[in-house]
């Protein structure tokens, strides 16, 4: 293990959870993403057929995830899938921290920042559909009105666990999770929360499948859609309770948009700016984890990372081939996979790592962290 002298004005990832196609627990996710892909049956992904998906595609679903079975009947009657996934991810993070005898305080000091594409596309779709097909146009299911709003997963998590700090829902396309990290850092730096749960949620639903299918570029060779919710607990150095180990320090986040149709140049500028802000040299980077788009856009990203950091760094962590396309949640799943992989590899300890994401519409983002090792 590595002992870290924790300063006060910096921000650390001290816990994470991932409700993923590997299961509800972070251990499931860690086992899944670090497994030897070749040893797994087939291609190692968790895809299953989804007859209601667009053109009967496959998708990577959280296995057996039924909201009321996972969360019980109390207060879950109108919970949609996106909301259920988010609430479960918060529960898992809290439960794991409590099992380690380091419970996460709730109340006014705890913020939740959750990224998403739309919240629950299916809830919105069904609600609108009811208006068009009901006897009266106002025959919409009133009890699902909160679900139609993007903030439902974050707000429902707050209600269930008593999170009374800032409660923010953020949409930013595929880089959303990194934008949420940047937002969380601003909250902490301004003293608006003592700790922030920050992450992202994406549901699989026929409606999302319908939308995504028609959003993809012609040159992409998309894999299955994935779903889940990944969360990180980010705390300032002086806010980490004794006994909780910092897993990684958040060094820098850079996000920008390619406004000149020079995607490769913009992406490189973004990554280099993040490295410079972090005070990190490219050759020191232990792992670089890309956002997983295919097609020309994805190629720009993977080529850039290989050139800057070398194939060893870019091949260390595998995410999207395992869990599918998690869209707005992809970067948080990348970070969780990085932390899971680094835990099992002592060569990572003390080294920086890079998470990137590029979206079809030209938005790019990069985060740089320093991996600190973990008590085992």
């Amino acid at each position: 293990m590595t002992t870290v002298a924790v300063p006060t004005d910096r921000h650390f990832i001290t816990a994470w959870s991932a409700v993923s196609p590997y299961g509800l627990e972070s251990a499931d996710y860690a086992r899944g993403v670090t497994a030897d892909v070749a040893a797994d049956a087939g291609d190692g992904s968790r895809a299953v057929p989804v007859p209601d998906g667009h053109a009967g595609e496959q998708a990577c679903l959280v296995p057996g995830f039924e909201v009321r079975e996972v969360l019980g009947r109390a207060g879950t009657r109108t919970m949609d899938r996106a909301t259920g996934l988010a609430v479960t991810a918060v529960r898992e993070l809290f439960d794991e921290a409590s099992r380690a005898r380091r419970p996460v305080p709730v109340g006014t000091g705890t913020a939740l920042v959750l990224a998403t594409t739309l919240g629950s596309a299916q809830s919105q779709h069904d609600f609108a559909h009811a208006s068009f097909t009901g006897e009266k146009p106002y025959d919409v299911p009133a009890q699902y009105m909160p679900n139609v709003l993007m903030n439902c997963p974050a707000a429902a998590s707050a209600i269930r666990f008593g999170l009374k700090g800032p409660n923010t829902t953020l949409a930013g396309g595929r880089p959303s999770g990194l934008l949420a990290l940047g937002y969380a850092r601003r909250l902490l730096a301004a003293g608006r929360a003592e700790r922030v749960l920050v992450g992202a949620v994406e549901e699989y639903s026929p409606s999302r499948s319908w939308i995504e299918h028609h959003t993809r570029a012609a040159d992409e060779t998309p894999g299955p859609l994935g779903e889940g919710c990944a969360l990180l607990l980010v705390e300032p150095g002086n806010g980490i309770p004794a006994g909780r180990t910092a897993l990684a320090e958040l060094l820098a986040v850079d996000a920008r948009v390619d406004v000149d149709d020079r995607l490769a140049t913009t992406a490189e500028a973004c990554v280099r700016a993040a490295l410079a802000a972090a005070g990190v040299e490219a050759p020191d980077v232990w792992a670089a984890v890309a956002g997983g788009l295919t097609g020309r856009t994805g190629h720009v990203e993977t080529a850039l990372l290989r050139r800057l950091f070398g194939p060893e760094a870019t091949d260390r962590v595998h995410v999207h081939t395992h869990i599918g396309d998690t869209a707005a949640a992809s970067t948080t799943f990348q970070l969780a996979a990085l932390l899971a992989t680094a835990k099992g590899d002592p060569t990572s300890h003390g080294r920086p790592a890079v998470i990137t994401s590029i979206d079809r519409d030209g938005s790019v983002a990069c985060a740089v962290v320093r991996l600190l090792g973990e008590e085992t």
Partner: protein
Amino acid sequence: MSAITIDEAVEAQVREIIADALELEEELTRTGLFVDDYGADSLAAIELLSTLEKTFGVTIEQDELPKMVNLEAVLEVLARAEAR
């Protein structure tokens, strides 16, 4: 004029709608209060109103909502509701 005549079948249907909207585990009494005795909230009340409207093809005015405090009151409101 009212659109619905309250009989045993209607009452049974209303009971079912209330039990569903309020997620009742226990027996619904005619005078048991939705909020105080069964823990209903404002969204459940609206859901109840809208399900009654759809099921019985009536319109229940918004100002009837505060009166719908228990089964008996709901049946009274339903009895005077007009067709949609």
